[in-house]
């Protein structure tokens, strides 16, 4: 992962003359899967230039909340409002601003890294030129010799880098990351943490679901802890590793 500063999210591609999201308001969001309650009345405000660590045990509802934030999961109750420059935005205008790094790579295994990025650049109407694609692949540290290989041949760590490249290529102002450090070596995890910090500083809203508290310590400035679908703790401030660990053990259990 390159340590070069993140591209500013406000530097929009001419194809979308749209300001980035600067505020997301989640209000009393609930989600049920049959009789199973995944989320219960969660309210949370996400602001630009911040990194929110969404913590909790397995099954706490973190991935469901990310799914709802990404617009791919419809809440059973409640709503999510996305704002840019004080105006509420919806539909494609919201999706254009979202970068998602999920458990799966969201990339086509039969296509190479370059082909995957060119495809998504086209779908997002952003610069998919060879230079732009190389730049983002350099930024995530995907080896040059792997870039023309089908991505199904990649290791977990390489896939994670490609997945991150796909999410960053579109210069999202709302970056949703579900366990982004999985499969990365220690150096890669630290570099990714730095990259996320740089993205936050450039104005983006970064939401990270992770169990790797060390990787996000000293970078996150907003912590939300879910337990059995409920938001049991939320606070803003500076968090070192010890404080994050303490908060996690006190509230997630």
């Amino acid at each position, binding site marked *: 992962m390159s340590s070069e500063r993140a591209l500013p999210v406000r530097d929009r591609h001419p194809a*979308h003359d749209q300001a980035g999201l600067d505020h997301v308001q989640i209000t009393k969001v609930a989600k049920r899967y049959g009789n199973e309650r995944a989320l219960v009345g969660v309210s949370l405000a996400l602001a630009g230039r911040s990194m929110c660590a969404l913590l909790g045990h397995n099954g706490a509802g973190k991935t469901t909340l990310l*799914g709802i934030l*990404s*617009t*791919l*999961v*419809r809440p059973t109750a409640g709503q999510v409002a996305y704002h840019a420059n004080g105006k509420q935005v919806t539909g*494609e*205008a919201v*999706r*254009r601003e*979202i970068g*998602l790094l*999920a*458990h*799966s*790579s*969201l*990339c*086509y*295994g*039969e*296509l190479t890294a370059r082909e995957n990025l060119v*495809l*998504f650049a*086209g*779908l*997002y*109407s952003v610069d998919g030129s060879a230079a732009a694609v190389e730049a983002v692949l350099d930024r995530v540290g995907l080896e040059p010799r792997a870039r023309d290989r089908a991505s199904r041949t990649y290791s977990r760590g390489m896939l994670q880098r490609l997945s991150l490249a*796909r999410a960053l290529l579109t210069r999202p102002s709302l970056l949703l990351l579900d366990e982004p450090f999985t499969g990365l070596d220690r150096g890669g995890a630290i570099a990714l943490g730095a990259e996320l910090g740089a993205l936050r500083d450039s104005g983006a809203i970064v939401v990270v679901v992770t169990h790797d508290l060390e990787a996000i310590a000293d970078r996150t400035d907003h912590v939300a802890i879910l337990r059995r679908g409920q938001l049991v703790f939320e606070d803003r401030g500076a968090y070192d590793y010890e404080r994050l660990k303490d908060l996690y053990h006190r509230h997630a259990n």
Partner: protein
Amino acid sequence: MSLLRQAARIAWKDLRIELRSREIVYTMAFFGALLVVVYSFVFPSNPELVRLAVPGMLWVALAFAGTIGLGRAFDRERENDTMRALLLAPVPRLAVFLGKASAIAVLVLAVAVVVTPMLALLLGADLFDNPGPLALALVLGALGFSVVGSVFSAALIKVRSRDVLLPVILYPLLIPLFVAGTSVTAALLADPVNLDKAWYWMGFLGIYDAAFLVVSVWIFESMVIE
């Protein structure tokens, strides 16, 4: 225009992957060809019987081979959750639907290109006496099949028993298409050829395609978002 361009981008992505792997089209074509070979052994070589049975053989072969292709095409989107990536992209969801359906229609037509001459050859059916109307019927049939099939394949993408459920849901909805397709083919094989009847059922195929395109476009988004 942007809608069609994005739909074409998604369709071309599918076809490009298929051109590289040739996995789906080979499986579909081989299965379709195998069905024709089985037909040639199990049906008596009576010219009158062949004339009556070949229309059904052709459309059943396309339906079965097409179902294999549908399942596999959407399995690909499931493997790395790429369907979510497509639905997250800032393109109209209609473009995602049209892109997937167009690629499947091309694959079904590729199977038709293999199965139709084989039926003519192995069963001695005069399928190429009126190639224009038959080609049009196959194109309309492939479009209808892929439109209806894409909606339900996308909706079942996360269902474990989707391979069993897909034909159970799909075939009852496709019965009017099969009736129209076999009727066009039968009219073209009749002695003498009944072009009036062929065009009547061709019109029905067109209406079926248009009606299901409208319904599918309307329900696609609600069926794919969790």
